[in-house]
C-alpha cells in the first residue's frame, strides 16, 4: 500500500462540502487543509458552485490533476458510488469519515465498499473515523482548528480505533511536551488495519515509538499483530479497552473460564514484548520514556531526591511495580558522599534513595547523578527534582541531561509541571530526557523500559 500519498498528499479532494453549512465536517476539513497545509485542496459536491471564492467541483473527474487523497464525508449510502468514482479517476488513497456502516448494522454496505476498493487496490482509512493527522502535511479530523490541541512534530505515532481517545491522547502528549510523527483514527478498520500501519510505521524513519488503542481484533488478527510487533525494532505500546469479563457467558471448561479475553490479551502482549499500558496515563509515560530510550533494562532504580518524603513515596511506587531499589554498598556510598558539598556530607543519606536534603545545590545533583551513572547495580536513575529548593537553578535540567549524553545511563525526572518551572523542564526534555509531572509517572517511565522485552 502506498501510504506516502495518504500521509503526505500533494493534492486532496474533499467530498461532501456544504455550500451553506460551514460547520459540516467536510467544510471543517476543507478549511483547515486549505488554509494551513501544503496540499492543493479541492471541494467536491455534485451541485457545484463556489465556496469561499473557490470553485466547487461537481465530479472528481473535473479536477484538473491527479488526486492523492480523497476525504469522503458523504452519507453512508453514497460512499460506494464516491469510492468507485475516485477509483475511476485514479485517486490514490482515501479516508472515509462517514458513519453508518458496521458499527450500526451496515455491515453489508461496508463489505461492498471494501470489495470495490480491494479489487482496485485503493487503500482507505475508516469508515466511521477521524482519519489522519500528519504534522505539517495533512489533518482530516473534523474538529475546527481553534478547538484542537496539536502536538508538535515528534517521535510518537498513535493508531486508534476510537477517534475520541486519540484526540484526548494528543492533548495529553502535547501537555507533556511530546511530539507526534503521525496520528491515525482507523474507525471500523474495514480495509487498513492495525497490522498494516504497524508494518508501515516500523519502517517510518520519523517514528520511534508506536502506540495503539485497541478495542478488539478480528479472527486470528491478534496473532498476526503480536508476531509482527515482536519482530518490530521499535517499542510497541498498546492500551486495550474492554478489560471486564463480558457477561455471564456459559463456559463449560475451566480453561475457557480462566483464560478470559482480556487475561489472554494481556498475557500474550507480554509474551511478545509488547508494552501494555493499563490506562491513558501509563500510555503517556510509556511513550515519553520509550521515545527517549528503547533499550530494555532489568529495572533496578537509583533514586536521587532533595526530600526524604519524595524518596520514600517513590520507593513505595517502585515496589508496587516490582522495580527493585537496591541498597548501595558501603564503598559506593562513601564514594558518592565524597563528591558532595562539604556542608552536606554529614547530613545526607546515600544508601538509595540518595536524599541530598533541601540544602543541596545544583553541583550536588550533578555529582550524585554522575556517581550513580557509574554504579552497575543500578540501571536507571530517577531524579525527583523540587525546583523550589533555594539551591536549585533552572540550568539543572540541561546539566543533568549532559551527564546522560556522556555516561549513557538512562535518566528520568520528576518536576512539578507549572509555568514558572518550564525552563528547568525544557532543559531536560529538549535534551532527550523524559520528565513526568508525578512521581508515579516517573516510575512508569522506568517500568516501560523493563516491560519492553519478551517476558
Amino acid at each position, binding site marked *: 500500500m502506498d501510504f506516502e500519498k495518504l500521509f503526505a498528499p500533494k493534492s486532496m479532494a474533499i467530498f461532501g462540502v456544504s455550500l451553506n453549512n460551514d460547520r459540516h465536517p467536510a467544510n471543517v476539513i476543507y478549511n483547515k487543509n486549505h488554509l494551513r497545509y501544503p496540499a492543493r485542496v479541492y471541494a467536491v459536491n455534485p451541485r457545484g458552485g463556489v465556496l469561499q471564492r473557490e470553485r466547487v467541483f461537481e465530479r472528481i473527474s473535473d479536477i484538473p490533476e491527479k488526486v492523492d487523497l480523497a476525504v469522503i464525508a458523504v452519507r453512508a449510502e453514497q460512499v460506494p458510488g464516491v469510492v468507485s468514482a475516485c477509483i475511476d479517476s485514479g485517486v490514490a488513497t482515501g479516508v472515509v469519515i462517514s458513519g453508518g456502516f458496521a458499527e450500526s448494522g451496515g455491515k453489508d454496505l461496508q463489505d461492498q465498499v471494501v470489495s470495490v476498493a480491494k479489487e482496485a487496490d485503493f487503500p482507505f482509512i475508516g469508515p466511521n473515523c477521524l482519519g489522519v493527522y500528519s504534522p505539517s502535511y495533512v489533518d482530516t479530523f473534523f474538529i475546527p482548528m481553534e478547538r484542537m490541541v496539536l502536538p508538535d512534530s515528534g517521535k510518537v505515532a498513535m493508531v486508534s480505533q476510537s477517534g475520541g481517545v486519540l484526540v484526548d491522547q494528543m492533548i495529553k502528549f502535547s501537555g507533556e511536551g511530546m511530539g507526534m510523527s503521525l496520528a491515525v483514527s482507523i474507525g471500523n478498520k474495514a480495509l487498513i488495519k492495525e497490522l498494516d500501519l504497524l508494518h508501515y510505521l516500523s519502517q517510518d524513519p520519523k517514528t520511534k515509538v508506536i502506540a495503539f488503542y485497541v478495542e478488539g481484533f478480528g479472527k486470528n488478527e491478534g496473532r498476526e499483530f*503480536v508476531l509482527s510487533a515482536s519482530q518490530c525494532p521499535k517499542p510497541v505500546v498498546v492500551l486495550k479497552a474492554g478489560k471486564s469479563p463480558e457477561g455471564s457467558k456459559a463456559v463449560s*471448561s475451566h*480453561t475457557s473460564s*480462566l*483464560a478470559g479475553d482480556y487475561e489472554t490479551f494481556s498475557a500474550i502482549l507480554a509474551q511478545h514484548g509488547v508494552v501494555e499500558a493499563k490506562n491513558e496515563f501509563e500510555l503517556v509515560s510509556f511513550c515519553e520514556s520509550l521515545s527517549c530510550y528503547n533499550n530494555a533494562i532489568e529495572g533496578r532504580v537509583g533514586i536521587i531526591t532533595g526530600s526524604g518524603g519524595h524518596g520514600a513515596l517513590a520507593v513505595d511506587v517502585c515496589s508496587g511495580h516490582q522495580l527493585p531499589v537496591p541498597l548501595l554498598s558501603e564503598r559506593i556510598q562513601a564514594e558518592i558522599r565524597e563528591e558532595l558539598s562539604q556542608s552536606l556530607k554529614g547530613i545526607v543519606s546515600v544508601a538509595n534513595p540518595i536524599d541530598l536534603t533541601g540544602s543541596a545545590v545544583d553541583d550536588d545533583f550533578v555529582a550524585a547523578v554522575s556517581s550513580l551513572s557509574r554504579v552497575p547495580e543500578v540501571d536507571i536513575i530517577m531524579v525527583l527534582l523540587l525546583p523550589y529548593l533555594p539551591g536549585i537553578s533552572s540550568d539543572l535540567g540541561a546539566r543533568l541531561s549532559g551527564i546522560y549524553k556522556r555516561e549513557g545511563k538512562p535518566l528520568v525526572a520528576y518536576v512539578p509541571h507549572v509555568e514558572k518551572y518550564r525552563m528547568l523542564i525544557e532543559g531536560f526534555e529538549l535534551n532527550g530526557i523524559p520528565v513526568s509531572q508525578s512521581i508515579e509517572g516517573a516510575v512508569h517511565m522506568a517500568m516501560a523500559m523493563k516491560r519492553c522485552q519478551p517476558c
Partner: protein
Amino acid sequence: MLKKQLQQILVASKKQGWVMEPEAKRLLSRAGMNVPRFQWTTRVEEALRFSAETGYPVVAKIVSSEIVHKSDVGGVVSGIKDDEGLKSAFSRLSRLPGFSGVLVEEMLEGVELILGGKMDHQFGPVILLGIGGTGVEIYKDTALRMAPLQESDVASMVGSLKAHRLLEGYRGSKPVDLEDLTRMMLAFSDLMMGLEGLVESIDLNPVLCSPERCVVADARIMLWQEEG
C-alpha cells in the same frame, strides 16, 4: 494421522459436544503425553482383574455422555484399597445417568496442575498452566501463552505462578520433574496447533507432577461448535 483419529472421535462425540475421558486419554497418549494405566469396562470382573494386576489403590470414575463435571455428581471415587471397595464403587457409579462404563485407573500422587488449551478468537491456540484440582477457579493461579510454546515459555510460565515454589521443592519435598512437564507442555502445544476448527478447549486437570514424572490424570476435550 492424529487429526484423522480426532475426526473419527469428533463424529462419534458430536452429539454431546465433548470427548469422553477414555477416548481423550487415548488421543493424548498418542500425542506423546503420559496417562495412567487404565481399564474402561462395564463389567466388574474386568475391573477387579485390572486392579489385581496394577495393584491397589485405584481410582474409579464414571464414563457417561451426560456427565461433563464428574466430581460434581460423585462420579469419582479415589483411594480404593481393595476388591470390596471397588465393587461398591462400581455399583454406585453404574446407577449414574448415561452410564457407559467405569474407568479404573492406577492411583498416582503429585502436585495437581491444570494444563489447558483454548482456541481464542483473536489469537488462535492458547495454552494455560496453573495450579489444578477441583479448586482451580478459586485459586486462579495461572499463566497464559500463545502457542506454539518454546521451551523458554514453559520456564517463564512455571516461574510466574504464585505457587511456583510447590514445584521447585518446598519445605523438604523434592522438586517435580520439570523436564517431563516441559516435554508434556511442548507436546500439548503441538497438539493444539493442529486442532484449529476441531476443538474449542481442552482441560487436562489434574496433571499430577511428581519428582519421577508428570501424568494426565483427567482430560476433557470440548469440541468446536459452529458459530451462530
